């Protein structure tokens, strides 16, 4: 455990190409995950992200078996999952169970595909819990390309998407195409999820896609600030997790999820303390601006 704080070793490892490649991949993922996160949280899609990630795993397992790049397999699996969830889970009441149904079948199928695979077993484990150090130049190129596409599309649809998310009735009344924004966003989330599978693995994608945004939502109500904070939190978790994992050679996933979780806890504490101060101020009476509001 004392290796954890062996800064000299960490510094030396940070000069290695494959480590830099991993950090680059993590930085790209942190940006995409942070940018999408607040909308995922507002649209209550955490479970959908998890389900999509499991199908990215299935796709990655198939790709491993067929000898195609794992990234492509994960991408295909996640996008198919996003479309499936969009098609089958249209009704809010049904969505939850539809995700459960698809997720479990996808996982089972993935396990079978892995059983057929006769290569190195670390590859199998890697797509479940991540294998960032295995990122290669061409993976990084795909990652950056996909991330750019996601960010551009998000920038174009951001305002109507936010409108449709927080205020669907009025958005519809204003002519926002609420119906097809949902599946489009699901596909964006699917692509981002597939990227995440490479880094933290299918089981832990939620730590980067959801936790940072959930933490941000605790400390701000501004959609813009929440997005900025979510990106900062996701970057901290992704990059920090890799750096911390270097010296002990322990799994990246643990450090990424641990940092992510710690940030979330801190944000909850901040929100709790603020809430207490707020209610104390309300009790003390007339200074509250809300009390001064009188209908004109």
């Amino acid at each position, binding site marked *: 455990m004392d290796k954890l704080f062996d800064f000299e070793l960490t510094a030396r490892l940070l000069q290695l190409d494959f480590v830099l490649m991993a950090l680059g991949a993590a930085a790209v993922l942190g940006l995409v995950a942070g940018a999408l996160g607040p909308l995922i949280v*507002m649209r209550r899609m955490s479970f959908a992200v998890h389900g999509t990630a499991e199908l990215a795993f299935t796709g990655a397992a198939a790709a491993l078996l067929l000898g195609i790049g794992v990234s492509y397999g994960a991408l295909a699996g996640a996008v198919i999952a996003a479309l499936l969830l969009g098609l089958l889970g249209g009704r809010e009441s049904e969505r939850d169970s539809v995700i459960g149904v698809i997720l479990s079948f996808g996982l089972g199928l993935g396990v079978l595909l892995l059983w057929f695979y006769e290569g190195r077993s670390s590859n199998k484990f890697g797509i479940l819990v991540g294998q960032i150090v295995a990122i290669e130049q061409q993976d990084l190129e795909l990652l950056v390309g996909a991330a750019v596409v996601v960010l551009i599309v998000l920038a174009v649809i951001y305002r*109507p998407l936010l409108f449709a998310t927080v*205020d669907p009735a*009025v958005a*519809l009344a*204003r002519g926002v195409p609420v119906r097809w924004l949902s599946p489009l966003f699901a596909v964006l989330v699917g692509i981002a999820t597939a990227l995440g599978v490479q880094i933290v693995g299918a089981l832990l994608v939620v730590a980067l896609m959801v936790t940072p945004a959930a933490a941000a939502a605790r400390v701000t109500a501004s*959609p813009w600030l929440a997005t900025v904070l979510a990106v900062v939190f996701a970057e901290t978790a992704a990059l920090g997790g890799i750096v911390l994992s270097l010296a002990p050679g322990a799994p990246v996933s643990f450090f990424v999820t641990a940092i992510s979780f710690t940030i979330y806890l801190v944000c909850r504490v901040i929100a709790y303390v603020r809430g207490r101060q707020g209610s104390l101020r309300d009790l003390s009476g007339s200074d509250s601006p809300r009390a001064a509001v009188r209908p004109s």
Partner: protein
Amino acid sequence: MSTTSTDEMDAAVATGAVEIGGAALAFGDRTLWSGLDLRIEPGEFVAVLGPNGSGKTTLLKVLLGQQPLSAGAVRVAGTAPGKGNHRVGYVPQQRAMDQQLTLRGRDLVGLGLDGDRWGTGLRGMRARRRKVAEAVDSVGATSYASSPVGQLSGGEQQRLRVAQALIGEPDLLLCDEPLASLDLTHQRTVTELIERRRRETGTAVLFVTHEINPVLPHVDRVLYLVGGRFLIGTPAEVMTSETLTELYGAPVEVVRVGGQIHVAGAQSALCEDTVHHHEHDHAEPV
């Protein structure tokens, strides 16, 4: 004399805010209404009354282009419904919003300004901020515009809703029970905000409500829908015991007390309707 602006004003005078001709709406064998002719002039305040399930909300959907007519024609602000929605403001019924929703009051208002536009909108941020601040101020919501919307009271939310609908400077304001579940003070405030807009800029108002009294002083005409039949006229013409008894086809008594109008017996005249608490139940086309 004939500058562009007067031409535009002439055009605005020539086209009503809403023009409905020979309109009918039916779902399967159930006709909500038919033979409906209604022209709403700019600056006119029309209240739409009627029991649950009489097609009040569906009428709004028609005007927003979300529901096609079974027969007849409709034009909103001079164009086909749904085509010019940026010239239409919409104030929905107050609904509880998620307490944790990452959205402040001013963000809700801002969405009314440019929430339907594509792109980042990073240019013109300063002008946008000023416009939103003005709209928030005009409904007296400045003190809570930075609070999360989910933590505001129903009355505060509805004021922001009015600002959200008015910030786009609409020619027509469609209100779907905006006063429901508000206390009397907030009912009056929200009504006055809408009325002020109509007076100052000539925005036409179509106000769906099941309670006419909060808006009675401002109402020019009433559209009263009951079980497939309807009446259009001034409140004095429509809100009488004789006309409503005929409309309901059952004894209904209209009582005027202290400048208010109370309709007695309308519920029992339509006992089949008392089970329908939600207007959308059967009107949903999906």
